[in-house]
């Protein structure tokens, strides 16, 4: 059965989305992305080095015809900066998609959700397809949806922490109420974390550090591919209810 993720008419072949930071080099980035099977890669927007023009370009390794390039506003701590980076990203890229981050605090990297809400509303009105990185807060997820977010991206745990989904109950409440796709962004540490997110019914998972920081990033990328797929299949298959006591699975009839 077809199980394609479609957001605002854009078809996504993969429910695993990949961040491109922290790899050793562009070649390793490209190999990891390939092993993950992802067709969405998120990238940051930064100044071109005008004095050393020999440096390689990420897009030479990740063909925008093959992958959906999802620019982010990583590093933005104010609404104004997030808007500025978003508008530049749209001009540098080929789509209206933006992974919107308005960071509230350097230590936790938790989002400044008040700024995030304002920026989401402004960018949605400008025609952006906005993917806001938010807290695992069901009310804020709803608010973001109301002002035009194309999907919501609640964190599982702080960025780069690898703590997994610290509040799966909140994610469930977000999923219950959301009319837009829910994509867990941040916190995944290993394959089972990604599976848990997908088993809850999340539409996709975005992973960077858990892959790039693994001892063998290429192998972890492959593990994540299977983890996301397994979680999605299990969600669609419908799990059995949890019970305290045993239920025999072999027939009692015919016993000696």
């Amino acid at each position: 059965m077809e199980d394609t993720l479609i957001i605002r008419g854009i078809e996504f072949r993969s429910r695993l989305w990949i961040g491109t930071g922290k790899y050793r080099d562009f070649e390793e980035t490209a190999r990891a992305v390939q092993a993950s099977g992802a067709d969405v890669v998120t990238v940051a927007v930064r100044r071109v080095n005008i004095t050393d023009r020999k440096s390689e370009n990420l897009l030479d390794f990740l063909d925008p015809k093959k992958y959906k390039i999802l620019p982010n506003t990583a590093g933005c701590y104010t609404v104004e900066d997030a808007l500025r980076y978003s508008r530049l990203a749209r001009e540098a890229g080929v789509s209206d998609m933006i992974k919107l981050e308005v960071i509230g605090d350097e230590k936790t990297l938790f989002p400044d959700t008040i700024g995030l809400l304002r920026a989401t509303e402004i960018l949605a009105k400008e025609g952006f397809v906005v993917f806001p990185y938010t807290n695992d807060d069901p009310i804020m997820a709803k608010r973001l949806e109301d002002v035009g977010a194309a999907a919501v991206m609640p964190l599982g745990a702080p960025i780069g922490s690898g703590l997994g989904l610290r509040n799966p109950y909140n994610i469930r409440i977000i999923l219950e109420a959301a009319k837009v796709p829910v994509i867990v962004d941040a916190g995944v540490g290993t394959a089972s974390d990604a599976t848990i997110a997908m088993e809850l019914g999340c539409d996709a998972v975005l992973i960077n550090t858990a892959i790039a920081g693994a001892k063998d990033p290429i192998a972890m990328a492959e593990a994540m591919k299977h983890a996301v797929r397994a979680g999605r299949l299990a969600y669609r298959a419908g799990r059995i209810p949890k019970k305290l006591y045993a239920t025999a699975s072999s027939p009692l009839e015919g016993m000696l």
Partner: protein
Amino acid sequence: MRLTVNGKAYCTEKGTVKELLGEMDIVPERVAVEVNLKVIKRAEYAGHRLQEGDTIEVVYFVGGGQEELWKIHSSLGE
């Protein structure tokens, strides 16, 4: 003409955004350009005249998934 390009003083005889990118050996399709905080559309590079003292930012996509690596010091305007 004296400009500020990506935070650094830059002297040029070039008159337009397109010519400036050419002088810096930058492929226009891979970047975005901002002049005095206003994003310039790619189609306007050839027509946009530069003025003495203009502040220009030329950006592109780099590896980065989430905020962690990219602290404020690498942001625009610093």
